[in-house]
């Protein structure tokens, strides 16, 4: 079950493979975002935004999607109970107010907005949620994201999806109930502090049963195959080329939506997108590292955002006995200069990381960022110390040299980074030889999952706003922990934290303790960097944001100034 906590963490490496596909991510509320509403800035008459996405929308059928473009745009055209604001805090959307939460923090009662309407004029009711959620967990639907309901700890979700459980497939046992047309009650298996923030997610959107059934397989494949209750409607969709959103005037908060129209162009090649930006066809574009130098001095246009994706090296103790030695693991970790890596190789706002839970990602009950307890993480670059540890490790193991295989994807960025890492280790640890094994995506995954590597470059992106999504990966039996790492103390801390949902501060402290143990004492993995993304945005566009969690791009409250 633990593995199901993994939420949507997708292997970050996927990002590399589909280079720009996931890069549109960023900071919360953005210190560098375009939020500066310069006093008496006048709105342009034509509130139309033109942006690019490196990926097409595969589908808008909420049970079938599994990529960030689909889920982002489904969140624009459909509204769930909650929506994240620009600080990534959950705010009532289809819910009329924050829910009533029972004393044991396991029952949430939501009052729905009475004025909320689907685009066919019918009201959005509690039954629309019950139907959509049951459909998601139904094994017959075979949704690639059904497990997210178990991750949210919604009552019986895990059992309904488990073949061996007597509740398998019994979707009416899911902990969601319509008390009346406008009251929805959700029951959880245990208190879950991040539950409300998950409800903004596309997989928790309501759907109208009669409409969905009428559409059948066509659901979400064309604009007319969807009902809308969100801030925008999808009015045009040229598969492969792009799509157009238009403001939904019936949306309850329409007065805070300024954009009348958003045109999204599918452009897979970043240099093409940059050329289109330069020729005035686009108001904003992502920038790959090749274009950073070209834009970095245009202060009014250049913005970087921190993403929540964290890259690291798996240290495989199962295949490479030398990596069972903690001194060797530490030596490898300390031999890599991450600042060089992010400043010279990547240049896109990525930051060196000696931690696994990213910066500016999750705020604790005290309102502080998780990272503020240890901003720089643990065991950073220190070549001298690394050499000492390596000498010590060699003696303990009785070896003179060490050959390591570093598993890498065959994309240029990935290869570049891994060649650099190999070079750093060899340079700082005499006697270590690192060969980089470059593999295409499918094979890379296969070799990684079957443990056929010594060092494996990989990464993780979260889908719920909580450090646990990064921490429980390293428990003894987790599917992602294929490198033979096991520390009973760590397992215990994670389990304790997991059951402390009713006491958020204590839970938070346990998670801090767990991360420290994992990286400072155990050095289970070698963290590398927290991903960043760079964007060029025209100065007249205000409020365009690239959140590090939830959506690829946030233009909900964006506006175009006179220019």
């Amino acid at each position: 079950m633990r593995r199901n906590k993994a939420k949507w963490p997708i292997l970050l490496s996927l990002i590399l493979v589909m280079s720009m596909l996931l890069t549109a991510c960023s900071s919360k509320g953005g210190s560098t975002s375009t939020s500066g509403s310069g006093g008496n800035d006048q709105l342009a008459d034509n509130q139309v935004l033109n942006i690019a996405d490196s990926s097409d929308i595969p589908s808008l059928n909420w049970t079938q999607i599994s990529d960030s473009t689909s889920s982002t745009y489904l969140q624009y055209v459909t509204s769930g109970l909650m929506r994240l604001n620009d600080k990534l805090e959950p705010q009532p959307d289809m819910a009329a107010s924050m829910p009533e939460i029972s004393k044991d923090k396991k029952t949430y009662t939501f009052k729905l907005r009475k004025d909320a309407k689907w685009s066919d004029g019918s009201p959005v009711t509690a039954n629309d949620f019950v139907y959509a959620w049951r459909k998601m967990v139904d094994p017959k639907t075979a949704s690639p994201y059904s497990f997210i309901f178990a991750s949210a700890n919604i009552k019986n979700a895990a059992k309904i999806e488990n073949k061996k459980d007597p509740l398998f497939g019994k979707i009416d046992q899911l902990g969601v109930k319509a008390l009346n047309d406008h009251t929805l009650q959700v029951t959880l298996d245990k208190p879950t502090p991040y539950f409300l923030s998950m409800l903004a997610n596309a997989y928790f959107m309501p759907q109208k049963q009669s409409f969905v059934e009428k559409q059948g397989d066509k659901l979400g494949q064309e604009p007319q195959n969807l009902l809308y209750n969100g801030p925008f409607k999808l009015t045009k969709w040229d598969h492969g080329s792009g799509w157009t959103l238009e403001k939904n005037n019936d949306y309850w908060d329409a007065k805070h939506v300024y954009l009348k129209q958003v045109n999204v162009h599918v452009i897979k090649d970043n240099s093409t997108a940059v050329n289109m930006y330069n020729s005035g066809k686009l108001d904003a574009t992502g920038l790959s590292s090749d274009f950073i130098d070209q834009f970095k001095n245009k202060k009014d246009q250049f913005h970087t955002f921190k993403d929540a994706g964290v890259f690291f090296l798996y240290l495989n103790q199962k295949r490479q006995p030398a990596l069972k030695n903690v001194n060797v693991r530490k030596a490898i970790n300390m031999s890599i200069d991450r600042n060089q890596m992010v400043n010279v190789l990547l240049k896109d706002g990525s930051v060196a990381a000696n931690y696994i839970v990213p910066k500016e990602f999750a705020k604790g009950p005290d309102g502080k960022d998780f990272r503020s307890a240890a901003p720089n993480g643990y065991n950073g670059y220190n070549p001298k110390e690394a050499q000492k540890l390596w000498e010590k490790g060699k003696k303990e193991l009785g070896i003179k040299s060490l050959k390591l295989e570093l598993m890498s994807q065959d994309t240029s960025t990935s290869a570049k980074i891994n060649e650099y890492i190999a070079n750093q280790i060899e340079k700082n640890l005499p006697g270590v030889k690192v060969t980089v094994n470059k593999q295409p995506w499918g094979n890379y995954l296969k070799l990684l999952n079957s443990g056929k590597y010594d060092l494996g470059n990989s990464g993780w992106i979260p889908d719920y706003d909580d450090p646990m999504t990064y921490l429980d990966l390293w428990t003894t039996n987790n599917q992602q922990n294929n490198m033979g790492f096991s520390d009973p103390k760590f397992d215990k801390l994670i389990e304790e934290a997991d059951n402390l949902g009713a006491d958020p501060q204590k839970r938070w402290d346990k998670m801090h303790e767990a991360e420290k143990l994992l990286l400072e004492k155990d050095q289970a993995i070698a963290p590398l960097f927290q991903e960043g993304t760079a964007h060029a945005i025209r100065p007249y566009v205000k409020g365009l944001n690239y959140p590090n969690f939830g959506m690829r791009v946030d233009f909900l409250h964006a506006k175009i100034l006179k220019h």
Partner: protein
Amino acid sequence: MGRYLLQRFGYMLVTFFVIVALTFLTMQLLPGTPYRNQQKLSPEQIEIMNHKYGLDKPVAVQFVDYVGNMLKGDLGLSFQYDGRPVTEILKEKLPVSGTLGTEALIFGAIVGVFLGILAGLKHNTFWDYGASILAILGISIPSFIFAGLLQYWIAVKLGWLPVGYWDGPQNHILPALSLSMSVIATVARFMRTEMIEVMGSDYITTAKAKGINNTSIIVKHSIRNAVIPVITILGPLAVNIITGSLVIEQIFAIPGIGEQFVTSIVTNDYPMIMGTTIMYSAMLILIIFIVDILYGIIDPRIRLAGGEA
């Protein structure tokens, strides 16, 4: 001619079936699953999904099912597009790639033939050298370099044409031009060689001796003969264009089939891999078939040989 056609057509079908079978079988060797988020799916979830998509059946059964559906015109549902029919996706994207490829081929062939004639007739002059240099550049520089240069100078710097996208006729010019460079070069080179050879052959000397005027010799006798080998290379050139368009479509953000082909392999989108392969091989086989026929029409000796065999 009838028998020749029938024979060619038979080969065509056999080739096609072999390609389908081989692709289907080798595709099974691709590591991984077609599920985008496979990394976090548990083995039980993968099992449930495999069952839904029929991927838990033996390969032989899957193959027979597939061929059966294919003959009915059903190429399955794409995984990348979360369940859209492959035929629908191909229907959308194929005309785009087809238009672009045809434009590039026709434009390239015409310009190439013209340059080749010029070079051949003005053998060892400035024109010849100019055309030869152009041909060498066109062959040795890959089309995506041209694409990048044209995009930057013509579209971004001068702003004469759109940077990319597929809205109207003006969007066709730069990508078609980039794709046609290698066609121009190859055709020009062939045409030049043929022209020089034909112009030096006995029957041209005879024609000249008979006092036929120069224009008539060039148009009626030289060009018609010289153009035959050019037609034979149009087949391979069309193949070049198809492979070249994989990159060109990406550079100009054109929603064609090229990019789909690569992505489908990377993502294990089995029905899409099959769909694009079938499309490509059908196109290539058809092109070769057409070239064969054209060859027969232009050079009657081939048709006769085929007929008498």
